[in-house]
């Protein structure tokens, strides 16, 4: 199926592997916004996806590799099908106690790093599905899904574009 001249991406997996340092978070952001913009997402959806991926990478940079930050890596795995864009942001660091989320201790630790402790809140608010897996000393994976704009909506827009009222 061809949409706006762009071949439909099927069973395509893209993996972006980045150093877990702050300067590369923008690279993850650029990659995902480039991909999302080719999947007919709205500008608003693309912003949401960018923020969610960026927050997940930021978490990995801030928390995953406290003792060996310079050698740590982040893997951003992106896959798409007709219904959705799925992104997994994985680190291979220390993992964390998932029970800490939403507690005073988490708030205190975030404030020490000038954070708001809102990274995961943002991700959950901006994406359609979010799942967090974390294993001590193996790492953390945040898997998130954004549903693609409905195909019939695209067809309707396409129809309007191709058949101007004249």
């Amino acid at each position, binding site marked *: 199926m061809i949409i706006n001249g762009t071949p439909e991406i099927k069973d395509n997996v893209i993996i972006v592997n980045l150093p877990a340092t*702050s*300067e590369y*978070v*923008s690279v993850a*952001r650029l990659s995902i916004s480039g991909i999302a913009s080719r999947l007919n997402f709205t500008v608003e959806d693309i912003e949401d996806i*960018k923020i969610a991926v960026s927050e997940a990478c*930021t978490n990995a940079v801030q928390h995953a590799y406290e003792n060996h930050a310079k050698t740590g890596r982040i893997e951003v795995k992106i896959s798409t099908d007709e219904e959705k864009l799925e992104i997994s942001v994985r680190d291979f660091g220390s993992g964390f106690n998932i029970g800490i989320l939403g507690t005073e201790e988490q708030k205190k630790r975030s*404030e020490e790093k000038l954070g708001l402790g*809102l990274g995961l809140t943002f991700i959950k608010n901006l994406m359609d599905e979010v799942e967090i897996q974390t294993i001590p000393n193996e790492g953390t994976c945040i898997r998130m899904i954004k549903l693609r704009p409905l195909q019939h909506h695209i067809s309707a827009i396409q129809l309007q574009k191709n058949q101007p009222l004249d």
Partner: protein
Amino acid sequence: MQSDFNIEISSNDSVPIVRIWGEVDIHNCPQLNRVLSDALKENDRSLVINLEGVDYIDSTGLGTIAHAAKILAATQGIVQLVCTKPQIKKIFEISGLSQKNVNLVSSEAAALGVTQ
């Protein structure tokens, strides 16, 4: 890795104005934090932060602004945040930051009108 982040500080009638351009994320937050700390040394009652040139801000950027707001709150001061882009406003709404002593305004003139 290059970024298009830029920051400048000036003042209007002793109210510091911090103007930011580009993308605010974990990488440039330490720089933002230094500039905001300098601004707070000049005036501990009010601060204007202009985000009109900002294309992207995440939770670390908001955290840095929240940190400055917290310091200002101790002296009943407020942060006037000039913000016109819908995507940036949305982030502030999700964060809940705009309910505290952070006031979202649509222009620098409006920000200075309130603080003067």
